[in-house]
């Protein structure tokens, strides 16, 4: 009797071991909200048999998570291109990209070259571009027809109807709006600190006008929808999503320049499924899949062929908001040198603590 049970258990145990071994290794993706849609994941799993597990996060938490494990726990991450090289130099959380495993022909060549250049550490590059967009203003034009620049985030006219993130892009944007060039001061920590203090003082002075500092994109869209917020600093994709629902609300490329970002694919140092990661990159960058993403999230991708497959309404967004001068005026983030974050962090704390 006992032997029988033992035998059954043994057989069961063997089965579980075998089934675990034969199932494909899942792909653990560390990314932004909206970057891995169910539609794409299902299609990918059907094609390759690889299960995708997604964790949503932002740049800062992505770096902190990978730093805590020294690059383990995830197989593929999607940091912004400007936040890779200094972090890699200091914490070694990524591994170099093997560009021969990627169908580089699918990419917009200039964007791929720019990302390769900006993520270059000790002769090796660490990322490929995925999608890009800008930060600027999302404005309810019925209520705030004159909001044209970041300075309107400090404008008394919109008291109580203003919202922005308490994060570094806001500091950079306001520095540009105050007539300075923060990117030019990246290499000079003292000058940068002085500039940030000036921006911080302006933010503290205008703090009573702010409704809240948003932290969650969906929550911001909700308060714009309900008319609680008229002028916000946000990503263009969010503004275009709202424009589809309510034509009064739209993205506005600010006069002092929208801030251009590129989010990438990068391989964490201890990725356990590098093959799966390359498969996912190549899958997502196929024109029809990149177009699915763009149609849902409104962000353009670095996929060369996708633009022909994107809905005309989505294409129209960019034409409407970015005339030639606005495109030329986009301020692209250069790689962030180490230690600037600490300067910014202190200013942001001061703003948040101010009365």
């Amino acid at each position: 009797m006992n032997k029988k049970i033992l035998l059954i258990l043994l057989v069961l145990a063997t089965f579980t071991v075998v089934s675990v071994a034969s199932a494909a290794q899942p792909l653990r993706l560390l990314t932004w909200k909206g970057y891995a849609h169910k539609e794409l994941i299902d299609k990918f799993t059907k094609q390759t048999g690889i299960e995708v597990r997604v964790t949503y996060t932002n740049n800062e938490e992505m770096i902190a998570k990978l730093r805590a494990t020294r690059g383990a726990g995830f197989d593929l991450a999607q940091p912004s291109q400007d936040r890779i090289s200094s972090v890699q130099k200091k914490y070694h959380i990524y591994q170099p990209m093997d560009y021969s495993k990627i169908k580089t022909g699918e990419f917009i060549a200039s964007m791929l070259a720019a990302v390769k250049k900006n993520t270059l550490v000790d002769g090796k590059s660490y990322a490929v571009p995925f999608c890009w967009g800008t930060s600027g203003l999302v404005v309810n034009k019925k209520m705030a027809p004159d909001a044209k620049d970041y300075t309107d985030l400090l404008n008394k006219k919109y008291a109580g109807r203003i919202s922005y993130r308490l994060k570094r892009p806001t500091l950079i944007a306001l520095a540009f709006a105050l007539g300075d060039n923060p990117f030019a001061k990246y290499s000079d920590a003292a000058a940068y600190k002085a500039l940030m203090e000036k921006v911080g003082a302006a933010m503290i002075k205008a703090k009573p006008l702010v409704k809240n500092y948003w932290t969650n994109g969906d929550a911001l869209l909700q308060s714009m929808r309900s008319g609680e917020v008229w002028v916000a600093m946000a990503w263009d994709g969010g503004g275009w999503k709202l424009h589809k629902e309510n034509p009064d609300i739209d993205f506005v490329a600010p006069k002092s320049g929208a801030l251009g970002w590129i989010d990438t694919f990068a391989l964490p140092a201890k990725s356990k499924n590098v093959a799966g990661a390359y498969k996912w990159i190549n899958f997502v960058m196929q024109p029809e899949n990149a177009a699915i993403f763009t149609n849902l999230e409104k962000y353009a991708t670095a996929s060369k062929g996708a633009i022909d497959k994107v809905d005309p309404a989505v294409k129209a967004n960019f034409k409407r908001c970015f005339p030639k001068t606005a495109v030329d005026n986009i301020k692209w983030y250069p790689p962030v040198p180490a230690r600037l974050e600490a300067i910014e962090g202190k200013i942001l704390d001061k703003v948040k603590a101010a009365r």
Partner: protein
Amino acid sequence: MKTSLRWSLFFFLTPVLLWLFLLIVLPHIDLLIMSFRMDTDDGKTIWTLSNYLNFFHEPIYWLTFVRTAVYSIIVTLLTLVITFPLAFYITKVVGLRFQGFFMTIILMPFWVSELVRVYGWMILLRESGVINHFLLKFGLLRHPVEMLYHDSTMIMGLVYTSMLFMVVPLISVLESLDDGLIEAAYDLGANMWHILFKIIIPHAVPGIVSGCIVVFMLTLGNYLTPNLMGGKNSLWFTEQIYNEFIASFNWNQGAAFGFLLLVLSSLVIWAGLKMSGQKLSQVVQ
């Protein structure tokens, strides 16, 4: 007999000790070491006290801590004032049959996570929220009012979150109070306030103090509620620690703040115990 007992004790104790050591003691040692280290401008890591000194030199840091501590004390006292009558009512006034029912009602909100509860409050209180909607509909307000993002809203949220942790110790301590004492006091002509201050509260002090400690610590260490409900003015000390770790990448500073929070909150509790004349060993029983 004796050796087998020792072996079984060893057997059952090992997982607990391993758990404590590997998951609590070791990371804390690592953090403690980290809090005394600093990256210099030329990329070297040195031993330093500057992370701790920063806290005292920069007004923003210690002011945030003082603010957090004061608000936590206010929340603790408010929670006590609100839940004491409630606990008394449940233990002494309603019949035994309904005690379980009332306890379940108090427990019910805690079956969902804190995040969900806070979002629930936000839906109720926001400018385009449920309460404003009804106030407008009944003509009590002409324009919607923003009820979120005030300190008072944040305190309300924190009190709501910590009520359960005050009610439970109060109920257990009040249950052990002999009803006969209250009846005898009435017979001897004492009024309600005398009974409250001479009999009920002295008996309940251990429960009050242990409830207060739990609520104070939970409030001080809360991150979600101040951040979401307090909005733009609510820099809580925990958020400052989070910012140091996540936004500034300055783990050394964050670790130092963490230990300062531990030490300073222990001091507040020590002061509280001294003032109420209680001993920690009695209170935690």
